[in-house]
């Protein structure tokens, strides 16, 4: 039966091919994000506005501002990332694409990696790039701004990775997006501590290496674990 005529036409997929799966998910999600630019703009504006509200609400005093600045930027980054996470799988789940993704010959894990990468490029990377500009409002000097951006550069991919597990776990649940926040925000706490702590350590002359290394370790762990955890959650959600 395997010699059926229809089965012989050329299929380009080598079963188990990882890179084409990553490429497919990355290209498609980036394209969809470009088609709905307004949504991306809303997330970034949210980040900009939240960060800008604190100096207005607290104090114009430079030393106090520079003390709270890194923390505020990190919290805003968490919230902005969280804002876009429910859409990571939910849209595909609702329109039936997730079934097709799970039934694709490519490994589901590779497709998850592509989606997470697209999520980081559309939300995490802009957050990193905007951080030095927004940090100026908090009277942070150049050295601190560089450390802040570096910490965010290592930390925001972890936000997307951990968030993908949460987004997959809450698929199809009522009130999934608020549950997602409850589930994921506690996991973000270590990132917040080491991320904001990196700037503090630099200021006090200790250097940021230790904090950045810990962020890097968190990134590696999340990178290895997330594809499997998120893919397993997607399979459970589809059953």
């Amino acid at each position, binding site marked *: 039966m395997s010699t059926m005529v*229809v089965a012989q*036409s050329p*299929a380009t*997929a080598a079963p188990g*091919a990882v890179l084409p799966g990553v490429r*497919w998910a990355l290209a498609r999600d980036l394209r969809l994000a470009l088609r709905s630019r307004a949504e991306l703009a809303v997330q970034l504006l949210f980040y900009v506005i939240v960060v800008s509200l604190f100096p207005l609400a607290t104090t114009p005093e430079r030393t106090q501002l520079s003390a709270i600045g890194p923390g505020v930027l990190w919290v805003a980054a968490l919230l902005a990332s969280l804002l876009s996470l429910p859409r990571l799988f939910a849209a595909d789940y609702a329109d039936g694409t997730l079934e*097709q993704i799970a*039934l*694709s010959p490519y490994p589901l894990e590779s497709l998850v990696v592509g989606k997470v990468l697209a999520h980081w490029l559309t939300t995490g990377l802009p957050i990193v790039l905007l951080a030095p500009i927004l940090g100026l409002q908090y009277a942070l000097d150049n050295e601190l701004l560089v450390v802040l951006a570096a910490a965010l550069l290592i930390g925001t991919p972890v936000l997307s990775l951990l968030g993908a597990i949460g987004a997959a776990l809450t698929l199809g649940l009522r009130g999934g997006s608020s549950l997602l926040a409850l589930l994921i925000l506690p996991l973000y706490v270590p990132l917040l501590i080491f991320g904001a702590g990196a700037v503090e350590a630099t200021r006090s002359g200790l250097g940021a290496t230790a904090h950045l290394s810990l962020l890097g370790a968190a990134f590696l762990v999340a990178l290895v674990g997330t594809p499997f955890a998120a893919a397993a959650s997607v399979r459970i959600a589809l059953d």
Partner: protein
Amino acid sequence: MIEAHDLAARRGHARLFEGLSFAVEPGHAMVVTGANGTGKTTLLRMLAGLSWPAAGEVRWNGQPVVPFDPAVRAALAFVGHAPALKDELTAVENLATLLELAGERASRDAIDGALDKVALGSRRSLPARVLSQGQRRRIGLARLSLLARPLWILDEPATALDAAGVALLAATIVEHLDRGGLAIAATHAPLGLPEPRTHSITLQ
């Protein structure tokens, strides 16, 4: 050949069906009918490897099907309740994306031809958002005819299709059977498939 042996399904505590056995040979179709909530979708998802049975097993070409079975995934074209279209993309882009996801590639001409066949040629550059439910279903039909997969599992493929659309669906399935493919469809409306090559089962 796809076979079911003594298949049983539960949803929560409710039993949907039990002791279901059948075999569908290449070149044949099977139509699954039954009232709402009798487990048609559940059965199709089990055959596709998307859900697993409470008892019994599914075999594809003699091999037991495991959840998300790679062998089934490589052979299967699945049409679910939702047509898997992205509102932001045009009909052509949707088709190209879905084919690529299935690990296949079609030339722009082949995609245009398939859209012409389902009478969507003039709508090929419109975003799927503005298409009607029936037109979205027709894009799904075009996808089926472009995919080179021996096993078709179709969940209510006739939903929202007009009379011409149902005829087109039947013609597409028959063409597939002629090429040695096999098709399993859950349906409420008769599809008009050729009797001698069509089994049917009714879930109670």
